Structures are given as C-alpha cells and as structure tokens.
C-alpha cells in the first residue's frame, strides 16, 4: 500500500482537479469566442465588471483590515468560549444567500435593528453601492477569518516571543513576524474570500438590489440575462471566470515565495 501511495495522491489530485475544472470548462464549450468578445463589448457588462472589481476589492480591503487582527487575536489568546466565537464566525456561511440578504436587511435595513442608528448617522446602504460592499463583506469575511485564524495558530510562538524580546511591541510583532510567517495561509484565505465575493449573488441582490452601475455586479448581470439571452449569460459567466482567473493567478504569482525548512539543520 505504501508503494501505491504516491500514485494514489496523484489520482486524488487528478480526480479533484477534473471534477472542479470540467464544469468550468463546459461553460466555455457552450460559448463561442465571438460571444465572449461581444459580452466584453456590451456596456452593461463592462459596467458590471467594473463595479464587481471595485466592490470586491473594497470588500476585500475591509475584510483584510479588520479580519487579520481579529483572527490574530483569536489565534493567540485562549479564552473560555473561544469555540463559540469561532462558530459564530462560521454561521453566516450556512445562510442561503437570499436569507443572508434578508438578515442584512433585518439588521441594517431601514426597519432593521440598527437601521435607525444608521439613518441618524446619515449612512445609506440599501440599494446603494455601499450596500453591495456590505453584502460582500458579510458573505466573504467568514472564509478569510477562519482561514486566517488557522494560519496564525500554526505560527511558531517562539518566533513571536523572540520578536518581543527584540523590542518589537505586539503591533510590530504582528506586522513583521506573524503576518509574514502566516502569509501562505493568509493568501489562501484572501483568495477564498475574493473568489466568494466575485461570485456572490443572492445576498447582494436582496440587500442592495440590482441596478446598473450602482449595484449590478457581474453575477447580477448574468442573472438578468438568463431568461432573455441564455447564451449571452453563459458568455458573461465565461468572462467572469477569465477575469477572476487572471486576477487570482496574478496575485499568486506576485506574492510567490519559497523556502521550506530542510530536514536536518
């Protein structure tokens, strides 16, 4: 069985890859290259792409900015109820997207729990681009937070201790040691959150609506096209896949790193 293990690993990866990529490829098979280009030429699609890019990047920035320190705290402190907090972080995942949108409305909508406070502060989210960002953060943040927590947990605490003795406070230790040491896990979490945000549909629709150039991201534009122009919707999906692949891949190549520990020092 030991000898068969490496082939088994390769088999597992091949099966996983095939299963995950064939359906994605199938979209392209159903789409002629001409249609793909047409989609790109369509101003509605271009608006949606541009909006998707802006809102997902903004959402990602918020997630990274708030989520990274929050995850660090979760990973480095032991306190009673930690498992509960982690579960709370995971819960938004189990909400079907439309329910997530309703939940956001119930919390932040005009009649929501915090709606009055927001209104008093002059903050409008519903049906606004800001609302798209809120919806994206809500659905994508758990992926990053959970992943980042696991990545920080795996950082060697003695390196953090060493940093402290070298005069670096907790902030500097976090920025200069913990984050770089956890970077591969953080990168994975970022990719997951970004991917999830790029594909997000239901919560955005429910919370922010669908209005060209304001709240209509690519997934909403795809839906809009579904009934009228099915091939067009597929073509736009294909465009989304291509753009996302380019984004995700380029980030990976830009932040590439290597250098695994040798076995015998």
């Amino acid at each position: 069985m030991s000898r068969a293990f490496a082939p088994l690993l390769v088999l597992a990866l091949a099966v996983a890859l095939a299963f995950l990529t064939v359906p994605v490829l199938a979209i392209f098979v159903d789409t002629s290259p001409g249609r793909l280009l047409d989609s790109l030429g369509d101003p509605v699609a271009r608006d949606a792409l541009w909006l998707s890019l802006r809102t997902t990047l903004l959402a990602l920035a918020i997630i990274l900015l708030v989520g990274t320190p929050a995850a660090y705290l979760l990973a480095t402190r032991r306190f009673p109820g930690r498992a509960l907090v982690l579960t709370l972080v995971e819960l938004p995942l189990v909400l079907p997207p439309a329910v997530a949108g309703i939940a956001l409305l119930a919390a932040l909508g005009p009649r929501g729990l915090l709606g009055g406070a927001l209104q008093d502060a002059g903050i409008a989210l519903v049906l606004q681009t800001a609302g798209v960002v809120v919806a994206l953060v809500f659905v994508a943040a758990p992926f990053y937070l959970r992943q980042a927590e696991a990545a920080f947990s795996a950082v060697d605490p003695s390196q953090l201790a060493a940093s402290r003795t070298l005069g670096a406070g907790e902030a500097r230790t976090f920025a200069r040691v913990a984050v770089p040491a956890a970077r591969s896990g953080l990168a994975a979490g970022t990719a997951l959150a970004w991917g999830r945000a790029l594909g997000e549909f239901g919560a955005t629709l429910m919370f922010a609506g669908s209005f060209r150039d304001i709240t209509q991201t690519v997934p909403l534009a795809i839906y809009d096209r579904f009934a009228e122009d099915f091939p067009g919707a597929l073509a736009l999906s294909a465009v989304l896949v291509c753009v996302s692949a380019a984004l995700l891949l380029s980030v990976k190549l830009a932040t590439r790193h290597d250098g695994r520990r040798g076995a015998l020092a």
Partner: protein
Amino acid sequence: GDSSDSGGSGPVVVSAAASLKGAFTAYAEDTGGNARLSFAGSDELAAQIRQGVRPDVFAAANTKLPDVLFEEGEVGEPQVFAGNRLVLAVPAQGAKVGSLDELAGPGVTIAVGSASVPVGSYTRDVLGRLPAVQERAILANVRSQEPDVKGVVGKLTQGAVDAGFVYVTDVRATKGALKAIELPKGLKPSGAYGVAIVKGAKHPKAAKRFVAGLLDGQGADALRKAGFEPPPSP
C-alpha cells in the same frame, strides 16, 4: 417506474414557477400525491430544460418561455392554464404609498422585476399603458430591477423600498406583511401562465393528466383557491 412510459403509472415530475408552489402542492395532494414537484424561477427551469434536464411538465409564470422552448423543440405545444394579477405591493404598516399615482412622487423608492423575468416584463407592459410622463416618472423612481420576485418581496417587508410590482399571490404569501393595491383594469394587469409537456417526458400520460387537471379540474380549483385567475382570454 422508469419503464412506465406507456402506462404512465410513475409519479409525474413537474418543474414549476416558484409562485405556483402553494397551488400545485395542494393540487398534488388532492390527486393522491402522485406527482413530484420542483419549484424555481421560470427562467432557471427553462435553462435546465435547455441543458437536457427532462421533467415531464414545465409550468412557467409567463407564456413566453414555454413558447420559446416549443420553438426550440424542447417542449410540446404550450397551453395557458392560469392568470395572475399584477398588483402594487406596499408594506401593510406604515406604507408611504397609497396609490399608483403617488408612485411618481419625489423620494419614493420602487423595486420591480427585471425585464428578463416574467413579472418584470408584465410590469413594463402595464406601465407602458400609463401616460408617458407618468411612466417615465415611475421608472425614474425604480431603484432595483430584480431577477427574482423574492427580492422585491424581501425589500418591501423590510422596508427597504416603498413599493413594488408583484403578483397578488406573492402578497398573499407574506401572510399579511404586505398589502396589495389593485391596479386599474385599464392597464390590463393580468399575466398569463403557460404550461407544456416536455419532449421526451418519461411519463407522458401522467403529464397529460396533470395538465388536463390544471385546465379544468382539481388543479384549476387549487389555483383559484390560491388566488390565481382563470386564463385570461387572449
């Protein structure tokens, strides 16, 4: 029950528009539960059928999708089996809008179905029958074009918009959270629902029986009970 083509004894598999959920479930129960029902957006169901999925019956919230699929050879000849009334929906409590006329006012926010889904295209048809000035003013207040009627209902119940155009059955489903403001008859606010038997259906006989019951029988009764109208005369 796969070999039951001719006998038609297996449960009939029905893909139906989400708004038909209540009526069809009641119909299926009345006829002994010999039907398997799946509800989704009409356009999503159409997409499924285009990809080769083979339910026995396809019931849409408009007539356009069955017609198109018929032309594409995916389904048999469609039939109109029910009508649904488009209404102006507003929150039951604290509504800012009391009538169609107030829709054009400044600061009113409206959600409508997007042009590509049945409820959205009906909404546009109806608004098109208004004076051009009023139509433009109302459309200018539209803040969201929803590919799913759920989006309109959700926003209304949560007060995220002031008004929206949905079917009267959708308002009933909110169990009193929304109230319907009837539209003037002159706007012809009724939309027609079309049904067709899918080509290559595994249970064509049962499918035929199911469709027949919709047109005139227990299905038609269930539809009326759920608030659907008889098929509008063309």
